């Protein structure tokens, strides 16, 4: 039986909880990006938001903030196709879709489907494939809607703990689900997953939640506890500190990737599957770090 005091405390907490709920206020994502291409060519950024064969975008719309990452599948290089073209065009198309408002915040898979369809409308015969991960924050409803196809993904961190994460989609080892456009002669042989096979997750977010969207270059080299450790350094919601943290995470992952003795998550997974390997996984790394904040114009 509750004492009056504890009952009172409960009521007070509920009332204060109700008062501090900023239901009327719109949320937004303050996002910074950083990354490294696998072979550091001239400079880090090829043409804005592209790191090696990875690509990403950050877009704002009246109703939503949207992020995306795409990891171009490197195997195409052997066939004379530049893998960064597909991922880059996919992300640019998603960005354009968002800017023109041709999307529904609660349907991020729709963003992927429409963008993929738009890629086929290009006169230029695009070839290649990539993974894709789209994160949409609905400003008004405070819900985060995500779509993930492949082995890129996101983490949501609250109070120093991972509260949500995406699932990896793999066909088999090192072969993630991927959107692709194949040359006609190889149509049957090339892996091509439909955009609607993307995994979709929606959940509420709170002010102060940290969302980390990245390609497998990060997750294969940095386990959760290291990422969380870096994120502890994030003190406030201003862009500079987010940028700094994103950079330090990307740099750390980059260093680990080339450490031959380090037992990376990738190496761990390989060992679990019977392959005796050690070391990091050199790969393109793309990191988008966001914090849920109040919307200011």
């Amino acid at each position: 039986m509750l004492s009056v005091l504890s009952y009172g405390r409960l009521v007070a907490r509920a009332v204060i909880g109700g008062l501090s709920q900023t239901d009327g206020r719109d949320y937004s994502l303050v996002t910074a990006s950083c990354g490294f291409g696998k072979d550091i060519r001239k400079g880090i950024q090829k043409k804005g938001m592209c790191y090696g064969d990875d690509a990403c975008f950050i877009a704002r719309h009246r109703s939503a903030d949207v992020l995306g990452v795409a990891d171009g599948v490197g195997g195409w290089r052997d066939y004379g196709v530049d893998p960064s073209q597909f991922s880059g065009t996919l992300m640019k198309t998603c960005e354009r879709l968002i800017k023109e408002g041709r999307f529904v915040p609660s349907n991020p898979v729709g963003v992927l489907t429409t963008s993929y369809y738009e890629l086929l409308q290009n006169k230029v015969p695009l070839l290649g494939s990539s993974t894709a991960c789209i994160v949409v924050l609905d400003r008004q409803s405070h819900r985060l809607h995500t779509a993930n196809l492949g082995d890129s993904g996101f983490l949501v961190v609250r109070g120093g703990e991972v509260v949500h994460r995406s699932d990896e989609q793999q066909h088999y080892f090192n072969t993630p689900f991927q959107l692709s456009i194949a040359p006609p002669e190889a149509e049957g042989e090339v892996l091509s997953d439909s955009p609607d096979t993307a995994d979709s997750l929606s959940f509420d977010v709170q002010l102060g939640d940290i969302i980390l969207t990245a390609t497998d270059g990060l997750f294969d080299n940095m386990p959760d506890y290291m990422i969380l450790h870096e994120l502890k350094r994030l003190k406030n919601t201003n862009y500079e500190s987010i940028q700094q943290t994103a950079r330090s995470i990307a740099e750390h992952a980059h260093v680990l990737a080339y450490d031959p003795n380090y037992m990376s998550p990738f190496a761990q997974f390989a060992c679990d599957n019977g392959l005796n390997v050690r070391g990091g996984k050199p790969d393109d790394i793309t990191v988008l770090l966001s914090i849920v904040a109040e919307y200011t114009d």
Partner: protein
Amino acid sequence: MERRQSCYMNTYFEEVKPSCMWLGLSGTRGEALSSRRAVESGQRTALPVSVEIDQYAIEVLDFSSHYGSENSMSYTMRNLAGGPNVYPSFGDFTQTAVFRAYGTWWEQCASAPPPFHRTPKSFHSQDYIELAFEEPVYPTAVEVLETYHPGAIVQITACSLNPFSQNPPADVRWEVLWAGEPTKVLTPQARQFSPSIKQLSFPTNLIRLEANSSLLKYYTELDAVVLRGQRERPIMSLYKMPRIDICDLSDSDEELLDPGTSFRRAGDEKYMDLVNGYFDRLPYELIQLIVSHLTLPDLCRLAQTCKLFHQHCCDPLQYTQLSLQPYWPRLNDSSLGYLQSRCTLLQRLNLSWTGGRGALTLTGFSSFMKACGGNLVCLELSCCHFLNEVCLEVISQTCSGLQELNLSSCDRLHPQAFTHISNLTRLRRLVLYRTKIEQTAMLSILTFCTELRHLNLGSCVMIEDYDVVVSMLAVRCRSLRSLDLWRCRNLTERGLAELAVGCRLLEELDLGWCSTLQSSSGCFQHLACNLPHLRKLFLTANRTVCDSDIEELAANCHALQHLDILGTRMVTSTSLRKLLQACPKLLLLDVSFCSQVDARIVQELSGLFPNVAIKKSFTQ
């Protein structure tokens, strides 16, 4: 000959000089004084009366055609809204607005209708776009950002109606801000086209661009349109009252009073015979011939001069062909009504682009059709948004002999309306580009309209299964000469095979962006073998076209004139060389984005075959 004064003379008033009182409303006294001096010396001053604002279009309201797919962002007219995506880059980009056609290639085809008589020389427009802006302003400039093959804009008009207003006024005026000739710009650079525009007496946020791409070497592409203007009416504008535009049909049809005795001079026997001067000496047919060269407004004006010319100008023989498209802003139910009595022998009628925003209604249209549609052979109704199902029913009932029907871009027409077309069993040419026709209506039309020669089903997105439609065509419409299946989503080699066997007389076939056709099925080779009369073949963006297909065309289709194989990676210069040698009549070859045909090969082939325009578009 005595002439009745025409009601509309070319007049313009002298410059209106505003009085000093107006100047006192703004600016300092010192400025006012100097402005007054400036006014009196006939100059403009820079009084900071009104702020100029720049706006990009916020919405594309209507347009006649585009290259891209409905609902897509690539090469569609919706890209003209908002700011520039590409400018100042020059190239073939997806984020621009592109029309369906360019040059004269489409006009050269047998499927193109001959031009209408009496088309005024000043009317060049082939396509149009209507753009809405946020705020109505008094325009001072309209800038069009052209990012590929500039030079297509031929007219800019402004409307007095605010498309977003809740209470639209009854009176809608369109004023021409600028009109010009189609040009082609030789330097390969993006261009900011900003002709000097007329001053308007009303604010506008609805601008219409009209374009003509006939001189261009490739598709023109537009990135954005800027409307610059002032919120307040410029009081310092020393404007000339515009010439009252006498191209006003609704006023030109007033019945002439019976001249009676006023034409006769009393007592002058000689003049009794020559009431119309020496025109009376000319045979009737000769005057008819002379008058047949006048444009329609001139014809209407001449009709008001005297009884003789009234008789000639209202003779139904002058109205066997009637094109009202150049006069689209002024055509309404009453003007159509006035023309009714003269159009009883009408055979070809062009109402394309007319009747929008309530100018033409079912009543006016059906009254005209019932009076004049009996002998109609050709009816052009492109972009006629006033059309509804009942209008189509009226057409099907009154125009039993109709051979040509163009409903291009009538995208607001309900699918049910198309069922009436099957009653027009003599149809030879049917254009349904960008309409919402459904499969059942289409099959019904094909069942009954077996004399079809030219059929355009480009971008008809509501047809579910093109194989079924094409199959029916192959069985019922054996005289088919041209078929446009631009962007038909699900045509496969099955349908194509039946088409090749059933419609042996086929000369033109547009299979652009039909992504479901696979060369590996042999469908293109089968096509080439079975259609020796083929003159035009578009396989745009079919990524499977390969050397064997080209070689088969070279072996069989020696009449080939137009070929588009944009975007395939499988065709090399070897097969192209064979094609160019085997097809002496080839005029157009589009190898844009064909990765194995680079600029060097194009240059070499152009040198060897100078009669062929080899197109190689590029993005960067």
